[in-house]
């Protein structure tokens, strides 16, 4: 029982107690507010103090992924304009696959031959499946107008960026503990559907296969590769991110001036403005805990 004792102003007055039984306490009104009022209140117990530099470093991961998606969009644009032909696309695919595997080999501490073989077999099946299904993708959206395709693709890519899980990777290495969340699955599916829509606008079957392979490679495996790089060495991650951003900005500059300005503005906003804003808003955080809180169960409810 909590007994809250007040000072006696006079010897005849009993002490005030924080109890509800016994009727009105003699000498005290019902609205008496004691010194121990709100004594049990705890403020901002679980709030994490954030450092500006750390938040900016974390924001780099977001801008890095943004650049990767912009590069994919660039490849799509060039392919649709027939600037990139099938053979260069295929070379691009193979080189990306090779470099991805190289990164995994170099950064993963425990990668047994078995696991590598398992990965290779999966990739082989994946590629074969895509090749077989390419004719279907080619004729999928023939009856839909181009405007609809561009609009839907853009909205799907934006949805993908919003719901993407930037802290980890949806496609995890085997043995990972965290299950993918609902939003990360939705974002992955959105990106796959956007790739299918773009691929269906292309004239030849080989082009369709190449672009599908490229898009899916990037969307499925890029988060995993970047996560491995980040885990391995933070400086490598920073170098990689900056070089990626520079490359993206260069390519977009050659494509369209306005888009370049927009992309630059967006990157600055994400990397610099948002962390500063977050730190400023933290002052207003007011978390209240006390004896009135609903108790949290310390065990998991297994149905």
């Amino acid at each position: 029982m909590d007994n809250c004792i007040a000072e006696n102003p006079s010897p005849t007055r009993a002490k005030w107690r924080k109890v509800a039984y016994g009727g009105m306490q003699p000498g005290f009104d019902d609205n008496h507010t004691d010194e121990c009022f709100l004594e049990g209140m705890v403020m901002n117990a679980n709030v994490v103090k954030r450092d500006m530099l750390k938040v900016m470093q974390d924001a780099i991961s977001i801008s890095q992924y943004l650049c990767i998606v912009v590069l994919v969009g660039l490849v799509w644009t060039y392919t649709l304009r027939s600037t990139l032909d099938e053979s260069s696309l295929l070379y691009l695919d193979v080189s990306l696959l090779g470099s991805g595997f190289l990164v995994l080999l170099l950064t993963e501490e425990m990668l047994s031959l078995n696991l590598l073989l398992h990965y290779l077999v999966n990739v082989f099946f994946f590629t074969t499946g895509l090749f077989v299904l390419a004719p279907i993708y080619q004729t999928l959206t023939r009856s839909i107008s181009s405007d609809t395709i561009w609009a839907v693709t853009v909205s799907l890519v934006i949805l993908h960026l919003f719901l993407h899980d930037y802290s980890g990777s949806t496609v995890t290495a085997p043995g990972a503990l965290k299950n993918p969340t609902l939003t990360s699955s939705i974002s992955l599916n959105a990106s796959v559907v956007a790739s299918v829509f773009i691929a269906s606008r292309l004239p030849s079957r080989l082009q369709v296969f190449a672009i599908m392979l490229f898009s899916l490679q990037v969307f499925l495996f890029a988060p995993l590769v970047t996560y491995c790089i980040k885990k391995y060495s933070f400086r490598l991650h920073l170098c990689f991110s900056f070089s990626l951003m520079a490359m993206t900005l260069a390519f977009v500059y050659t494509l369209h001036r306005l888009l370049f300005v927009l992309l630059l503005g967006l990157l600055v906003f994400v990397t610099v403005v948002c962390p500063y804003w977050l730190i400023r808003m933290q002052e207003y955080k007011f978390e209240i805990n006390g004896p009135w809180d609903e108790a949290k169960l310390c065990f998991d409810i297994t149905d």
Partner: protein
Amino acid sequence: MGDSKRHRILMVSDFFYPNFGGVENHIYLLSQCLLKLGHKVVVMTHAYGNRSGVRYMTGGLKVYYVPWKPFLLQNTLPTFYGTLPIIRTILIREQISLVHGHQAFSTLCHEALMHARTMGYKVVFTDHSLYGFADVGSIHMNKVLQFTLADVSQAICVSHTSKENTVLRSGLPPEKVYVIPNAVDTAMFKPAAERPSGNEITIVVISRLVYRKGADLLVEVIPEVCRMYPNVRFIVGGDGPKRVRLEEMREKHSLQDRVEMLGAVPHAQVRSVLISGHIFLNSSLTEAFCIAILEAASCGLLTVSTRVGGVPEAYDMIVLAEPDPTDMVQAIKKAISILPMIDPQDMHNRMKKLYDWHDVAKRTEIVYDRALKCSNQSLLERLSRYLACGAWAGKLFCLVMIIDFLLWRLLQLWKPAEDIEVVPDIVLSLDEDRGMSQDFQAFNEDHSLR
């Protein structure tokens, strides 16, 4: 009682008879005690099924079942201004002097208090529950509460923890909040003439089987206790979504003969279930003021409860435990060891001295007197209080009140107050011998006949 002023009180809430619960019982029993003190009490609530219109209950308690159907969790649809005409009519017909609203979760209460303030009546609000601050529902609820309590005359909370919670949520000055706890009807909850004998110890649990009331804790605690003490059996009364989990637990540990599940227990039979046990177990995760503990203690049971909310203030002879299965098992162990030293009749007599509804009514009367002494304020003075509620919210609230004021003026022109017939005062001759207990028995018979 020879009191100076006779108040004419309108109690408003979404929660009233024929529903049974803490708020409903509180309103009914408080109204009965206030009637005995010589005041006039009228209750307003929404229609329950076919039960719509005006009803009279024991002691001349008039209840208006306004023909609005509940739409979500026993609450009426919040239409802001839809209830203004009917509330104005009731207030003028019954010549009300004070409006008393109950329960922050009741939309009818908030609307009634808003309209009463517009029309210049004094307003008192009682909060019966604890709420958090962090989730979306609570944030919304707290803002609505801030609006209602920005201009309330006085407020009442049922425990000191509840007062702290309400003051933090609504920003009221603490001097305006009175702590008046609920009480228990000791005449109805009497212990059995003889304790259930035998060397079996029976633990009773009566609560809604939902997450908030700690049904998951029960699922962990019951098998452990049954394993440690072969002579202990459980009686679980109440229904809810977690009942399935309890039944599964029963099957899994083969406790069918040691754990009895009664299903929903009607209010009239709660006492008979309680007196068949020795210990009462309450495992709720949050509780502003637990009347169930008082009812059990009044029936002579030893109570074991989780240390949450206002429970430690309610009674001093409770065995408290943290809301953790291991701790609760330890507490039950301690309770079983001190059980032979407990005398049910002693506990009942003690409870009679500590809690009394007449005392609650007298303290509430003091609050009413203070409320009526508050000064009358014009619309502009009141608007300044609403503006303080927040940068955007303050202006929105002011707009709502101005529109309410204009609608009230329009109603005054359209249906002048002189045209509304005033109800004559009918004073029932109170039978001197008829005690409170007979009133409450009649209340329970009302329910069983329904």
